[in-house]
């Protein structure tokens, strides 16, 4: 089984399959379906310093091969998480990664300090609006990505993963800024901005008007961005966005992901992460790879300009 283990910037995962923030609660719900220790890691629901009620419902809209959500970071706060939820998760042999979100850089830093080394890693959700800077998300300019990463990294006792937003002109530039700021790893993609309208009521379907798109529909965008990011930086990458089956997971790893994360697919098939894990193992065997790490970026691209993505020996 060691051939399935990966190291994500210092976080050791026994296998490369994680579950995505916001789609897996704090693990309790899915623990009724299978033993959470089977997973490589669990990224918990996005945490804020104080509890948040989130946005008004409706918060979900179905779209072609996808869904929009506007949960708005409903969560019980970092303190509650540490006291009431983390001990439960610690009962399992699985890496626990805290996804954190703040209104200001200071809030992010306080959360990182508070979490200390209670978790195995911290994932920085930089798609949230920066209230101090007038509401633009932290994740959309290189400068602010660099700044927030550097500042939070200083406070981090555990590896820091920066989660990139796909709603940007140049994902390479953002990936580089996160790396320069000290990110130990990247994860991508977060949801794509989108909207759905009910033509009968002539209102947006979501009470928040707009929401974040996830699910199979976004997969090609996500694979493309993981590929670009993997060419830009040499730190580990957790790939996600529309992964529903093991074939999808392999696509991401060939594009340059070291590990994959399953989000929306959990809603449709609670066993999706396990089935994906099993499929990856079978693919390795069938294709005579001795180790999962041989998959990363093992892609023969066209045009011969594939310096970063050669097969590793």
């Amino acid at each position, binding site marked *: 089984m060691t051939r399935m283990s990966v190291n994500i910037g210092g976080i050791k995962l026994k296998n490369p399959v994680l579950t995505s923030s916001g789609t897996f609660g704090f693990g309790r719900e899915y623990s009724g379906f299978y033993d959470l220790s089977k997973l490589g890691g669990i990224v918990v629901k996005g945490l804020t310093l104080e509890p948040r009620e989130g946005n008004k419902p*409706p918060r*979900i809209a179905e779209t072609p091969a996808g869904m929009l959500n506007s*949960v708005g970071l409903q969560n019980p706060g970092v303190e509650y998480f540490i006291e009431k939820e983390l001990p439960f998760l610690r009962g399992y042999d699985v890496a626990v990664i805290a996804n954190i979100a703040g209104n200001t850089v200071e809030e992010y830093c306080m959360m990182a300090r508070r979490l200390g080394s209670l978790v195995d890693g911290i994932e920085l959700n930089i798609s949230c609006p920066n209230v101090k800077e007038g509401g633009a998300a932290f994740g959309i300019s290189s400068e602010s990505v660099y700044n927030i990463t550097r500042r939070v990294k200083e406070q981090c006792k555990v590896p820091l993963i920066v989660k990139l937003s796909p709603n940007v002109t140049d994902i390479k530039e953002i990936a580089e800024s996160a790396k320069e700021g000290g990110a130990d790893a990247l994860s991508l993609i977060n949801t794509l901005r989108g909207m759905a309208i009910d033509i009968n009521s002539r209102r947006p379907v979501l009470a928040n008007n707009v929401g974040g798109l996830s699910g199979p529909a976004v997969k090609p965008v996500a694979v493309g961005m993981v590929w670009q990011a993997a060419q830009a930086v040499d730190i580990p990458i957790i790939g996600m966005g529309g992964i529903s089956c093991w074939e999808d997971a392999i696509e991401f790893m060939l594009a340059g992901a070291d590990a994959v994360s399953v989000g*929306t697919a959990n*809603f*449709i098939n*609670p066993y999706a992460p396990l089935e994906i894990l099993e499929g990856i193992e079978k693919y390795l065997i069938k294709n005579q790879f001795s180790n999962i790490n041989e998959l990363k970026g093992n892609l023969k691209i066209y045009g011969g300009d594939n310096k970063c993505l050669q097969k590793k020996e």
Partner: protein
Amino acid sequence: MQCICKIVENRELCKDVFEMKIECPEMVREAQPGQFLHLKVNKSIDPLLRRPISISRIYRDTGVISIVYQCVGKGTKEMTALKKGEYIDVLGPLGSGFTLSDEGKCAVVGGGIGIAPLLELACSLKDCDAYLGFRCNTYKLDEFSSACKELYIATEDGSTGSKGYVTDIIKDITKYNVIYACGPKGMLKRVKELCEDTGVKCFVSVEERMGCGIGACLVCACRIKEGDTWHYKKACTDGPVFAAEEVDFDD
């Protein structure tokens, strides 16, 4: 739990209203009135998400659950095409069911497709009346009439029972110990008012759009009062049944 269940019946009860019976002995063992199933209507990504449908009847002896659904969109349309003998992917039973009252007289108040989820409840209650409001076509009247002491019916077009809304035909609400209601938001609001005015205990089953159906995604938020404050609770696991006085229908 998740099961691939055999469909033992799928037929139209009246225009656009269908009943599907599925074999799921393990689910039957746990199922309570007021709970729901979360259905993947086909194997395709179109539609992508599961669809929540309430349990209408639980046949403990045969291990069969009946659901009644209205064809309103893509997912329920797909369901109508499923045939006896085919299989359907089911998560369930989900949610908190109705809190059964042991003593005294109860009533179920249902509107439209919200009538179906009350049937198993009516069968489980010892002394129960039913107030049912349809637009025009009725369904399941026989079963309600054998499960209930009294059956009151309203239709919007007056084709069966009284003409008008179901809330108009509730004459003396104070004779009931508990009211259980399921139906459109407007109806639930009115029932809640009636009960609040008269101090009758009332439970309502609410509908919110769902993702996971099991409490992990937080999309099914329902605004629930707790003392002086309120919280967004999950319709899928904290509900879909709530005490009427807690629910903020104006969110």
